[in-house]
């Protein structure tokens, strides 16, 4: 069942009925919700059935599919994240939400690809954020519904079980492809870099991007056997030479700057026709929402929160992530 945007009152009623929910809303809204079988994260941006919506007053609600037979809600600190795969059901899926800029966000981004068993069960999720006007003042938070408990330092995961015969599948839509420019590599991992190797030659990264007039709305893209994995640019500081990202770059991975995407909505529809998939959950990046001016526009029939990072096993940027039950 596709998720939808609802009022706080409608959401409270669903929670009190015992329905199992994935929620996204402004912190002031989530804080009003009663305990129940739900997890949530703070964000006031959503892709609804009628297009992108920005609101501090509504709730985006995904109800778990009826096939889900059991639910386990667990929170994890930075040192416990590697336990996420061990808490998963033997057949099912998990949804993780992490608070933006927290240590748990940074650690998940850097370490998740190395977690033992991380790829054995479908794992999707997103990075909770805030209104863009409040970045730096508002504190992103996640909520564990059983106690309606909020945290800015822990990740919350809803583990869901499925019966035999039902499968969850994770996929992504990334409209960015590697451009024709040089290969970029790094000699240390991290969310910030001052040095970049351009076809093997060291440069000051901020100077390099400035010298080529790079449009910083275009991410770095790595090619993982045909799947583009983005690293979005947060800032370029020519004084320090430092470039900051919304995800870490990794040593040994070859990146290229992305080729431009023209009409995001049209390109999205070309890649994922309406009716092609019926996700149980989906999320898309705030950068896509802002750069492609998605408020009031639709991304096919895919709905969901607009997030400060997306998770399909590992952290992604400027990507739509979705989970289907097949």
């Amino acid at each position, binding site marked *: 069942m596709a998720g939808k945007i609802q009022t706080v009152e409608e959401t409270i009623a669903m929670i009190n009925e015992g329905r199992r929910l994935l929620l996204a809303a402004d912190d002031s809204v989530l804080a009003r919700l009663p305990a129940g079988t739900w997890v949530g994260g703070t964000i006031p941006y959503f892709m609804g059935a009628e297009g992108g919506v920005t609101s501090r007053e509504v709730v985006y609600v995904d109800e778990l599919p009826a096939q889900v037979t059991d639910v386990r809600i667990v929170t994890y600190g930075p040192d416990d994240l590697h336990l996420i795969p061990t808490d998963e059901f033997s057949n099912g899926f998990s949804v993780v939400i992490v608070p933006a800029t927290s240590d748990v966000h940074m650690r998940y981004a850097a370490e998740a690809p190395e977690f033992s068993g991380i790829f054995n069960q*479908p794992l999707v999720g997103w990075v909770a954020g805030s209104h863009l006007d409040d970045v730096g003042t508002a504190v992103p938070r996640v909520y564990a519904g059983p106690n309606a408990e909020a945290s800015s330092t822990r990740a919350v995961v809803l583990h869901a079980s499925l019966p035999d015969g039902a499968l969850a599948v994770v996929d992504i839509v990334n409209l960015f492809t590697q451009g024709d420019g040089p290969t970029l590599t790094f000699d240390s991992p991290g969310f910030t870099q001052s040095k970049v190797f351009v076809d093997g030659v060291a440069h000051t990264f901020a100077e390099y991007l400035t010298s080529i007039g790079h449009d910083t709305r275009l991410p770095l893209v*790595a090619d993982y*056997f045909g*799947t583009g994995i983005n690293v979005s640019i947060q800032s370029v500081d020519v004084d320090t030479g430092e470039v900051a990202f919304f995800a870490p770059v*990794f040593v040994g991975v070859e990146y290229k700057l992305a080729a431009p995407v023209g009409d995001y909505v049209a390109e999205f529809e070309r890649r994922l026709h309406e009716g092609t998939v019926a996700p149980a959950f989906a999320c898309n990046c705030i950068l896509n929402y802002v750069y492609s001016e998605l408020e009031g526009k639709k991304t096919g029939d895919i709905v969901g929160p607009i997030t400060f990072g997306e998770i399909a*096993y590992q952290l992604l940027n400027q990507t739509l992530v979705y989970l289907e039950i097949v």
Partner: protein
Amino acid sequence: MVPNRTDARWEQLVDSPESGTYQFLALRILMQRVTLKHKFGMSAAERAELLDEIHAFFVKNERLVGPDLQSIFG
């Protein structure tokens, strides 16, 4: 059917990850990790652990990785 862990083609997957093509999203990300580990070198213990992990991945995802099993193992 996922080949037994002792099948030599698992070792080929770990030793030459870039010689294959992969369809399943999680497998593509996993094989990127294998590529990096191969690039930087692994101890014998790390290699054995990686082999176990890859085999377990295929067993866990057997119903979803049919095309990849066919491509790798024929």
